[in-house]
């Protein structure tokens, strides 16, 4: 199986450790991973904000970069959603039949990390060790569009030493929402503050999620409030073999 890592522009620049964790994790499970260096961005920020024309070249370059792989694995539920659900819309919008065809070819091969581990590789115990209490935030895209369900939970429950704590109101949006976070910053912050209020009430040491975008927002609020709770991507926990540094 030829596996590509779709890092996402976000993780590339702000959270490179998440990409490194995915590589470590998949290597440990016996799989080679390639990183097609032509990849840039899936176009989600443009698409969701209404800049559909500007999105077309990004979809085109995505398909070129990832052509020929059996599986394209991403540590982002929301970017995986963009490719799987919306690239087709953008391709049709472009009126370019060859783009429609290449999207039909490439998009279905994109997997969010936990989907790939559980559904394709068939593992839930990835041999990780992480002796900390963790609250998991199931992001909206992973819940409602990718419908990855309890896969991240099953993976976390199998991690040695990890205590999974219930996050009240877990399925409610954290308030990030892409450009919503800046275009409606006050509402976004109000939603995020309620979320971290619930989080702090659990006493968890770590907040984990399948999307660093939500974690950037929640982590940014926690950091401003000088909270000791750390935010970590699911991949970093699954790649871990001991206590957090």
């Amino acid at each position, binding site marked *: 199986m030829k596996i590509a890592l779709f890092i996402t522009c976000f993780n590339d620049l702000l959270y490179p450790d998440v990409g490194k964790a995915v590589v470590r994790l998949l290597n440990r499970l016996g799989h080679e991973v390639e990183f097609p260096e032509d990849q840039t961005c899936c176009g989600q920020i443009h698409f969701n904000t209404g*800049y559909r024309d500007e999105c077309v070249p990004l979809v085109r370059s995505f398909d070129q970069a990832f052509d020929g792989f059996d599986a394209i694995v991403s540590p982002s539920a929301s970017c995986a959603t963009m490719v799987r659900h919306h690239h087709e819309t953008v391709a049709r919008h472009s009126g370019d039949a060859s783009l429609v065809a290449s999207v039909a070819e490439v998009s279905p091969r994109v997997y969010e990390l936990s989907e790939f581990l559980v559904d394709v590789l068939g593992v839930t115990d990835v041999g990780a060790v992480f002796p900390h209490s963790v609250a998991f935030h199931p992001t909206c895209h992973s819940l409602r569009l990718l419908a990855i369900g309890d896969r991240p939970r099953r993976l976390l429950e199998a991690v040695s030493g990890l205590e999974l704590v219930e996050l009240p109101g877990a399925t409610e*949006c954290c308030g990030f929402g892409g450009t919503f976070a800046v*275009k*409606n910053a006050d509402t976004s912050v109000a939603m995020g503050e309620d979320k971290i209020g619930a989080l702090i009430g659990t006493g968890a040491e770590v907040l984990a999620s399948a999307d660093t975008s939500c974690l950037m927002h929640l982590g*940014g609020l926690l950091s401003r409030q000088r909270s000791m709770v750390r935010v970590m991507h699911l991949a970093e926990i699954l790649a871990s073999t001991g206590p957090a540094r």
Partner: protein
Amino acid sequence: MSGSPAGREPLPTFAGTPPFPEAARTALADEQLRRNLRHATTTIRTKRGRAVAERPDWEALRLAGAAIKDDVIARWPELLTQLEANVTAAGGIVHWARDGAEANAIVAGIVRAAGATEVVKVKSMTTQEIELNEALAREGIEAWETDLAELIVQLGRDLPSHILVPAIHRNRDEIRDIFRAEMGAAGRPAPADLSNEPRELAEAARLHLREKFLRAKVAISGANFAIAETGTVMVVESEGNGRMCLTLPETLVTVMGIEKLLPTWRDLEVFLQLLPRSSTAERMNPYTSMWTGVTPGDGPQAFHLVLLDNGRTDVLLDEVGRQALRCIKCSACLNVCPVYERVGGRAYGSPYPGPIGAILTPQLRGIARHPVDEQTASLPYASSLCGACFEVCPVRIDIPEVLIQLRTQVVRQHGWRARTFGEEPVAMRALSTAFANPGRLDLAERVAGGAGRVVGRRGRIGRLPLPGLLGAWFRRRDLPAPARTSFRRWWRSRSSRGES
């Protein structure tokens, strides 16, 4: 109002609502409002969950509901004229109105012809949309809202903030104060010792309104559904104020949006399951009234049905957006919306708040045909696209999909207008250019990484006094500093070292 019975200062209207982010900021600052909203939305969405879980066939009902409504739109002229013929054959009079002004003029004419100077009203979103009460007031006709929540809003000289529970933003103490202060000027006063107990407040409303029901000559209602096949019109409600209005006055005027049609009588087997469970979270609402034309010796002897367009045919123009015409105004999407829960309904600047309002209002205001104003243009962005609304919608309106579609319309219409969008279009173009080429992205990342080292402290960037959208991020949130080495640089160095 303009519509105030005692000729007092004008009632507020939605006109002049600022763009959503600004209106939301004002609402967020109101702690009492946020507590009231959180309590109310949490209560009702928990109840709804139970009512829906009881139906093992819920998804099948949703699929049927969506398809029936799509069928209505596909056969719209045929079904509308069928309804018209059947209502007429049963002794009703059908009027058509292109817009609110036409509808208001028709209604005022009917009221005047009936020799009335006041009307009792059943709660109706459509008449709010066309500001019928204000129009009637200009004609010297008083319109009394009889739904308890609408009464609270009307007496409180307030604006509604929810489709189902318009006074959801008010708590019991506020309601008691409004009743004590305002009922007397509108009719029978509230008892001087009125408490804040919901039971006592409801009793005060019962007594206050009963005299109005018994003397009214004309009632005005909306319609939840109208059956083309039979000419039957119906209203669902809880309190019995609807039955009073639909039964006692001599003349009944129903103002109905043209999308409220159903093709057949049988279709109610779907919608009478979907609506109550989604709306009030009950198996069935306490009262549903159905009537076909007039019945000699029973109820109103004159029935007028006003079929209202007012932008609905504009909604038809967008092939993605037109699914909003399926809406049965249940308000389930409001109750699950995290944005609505925090800012309430009035920030949306329209009688249709929440997720459905964010897609319906711009379309009713003609976004498919011409550029809309700034407040309207802000509505499609009043969502984090979390998708909770689509999950609960009984007629499967994919609200996030329509929001994105409308955002595309807004960007096309407003283009580079700095007043609406600030630096956003420039940033979007720049990002698109950078992302279209990995080499350029790499360069941009190195620049960002360098900048991050300058402004970052211990891997994070704290308060940055920036203007515009970036500044909006930093007011309450930090940001991780861009990595010194991006992932792609790390990968390249790792590859060149021959690791795998």
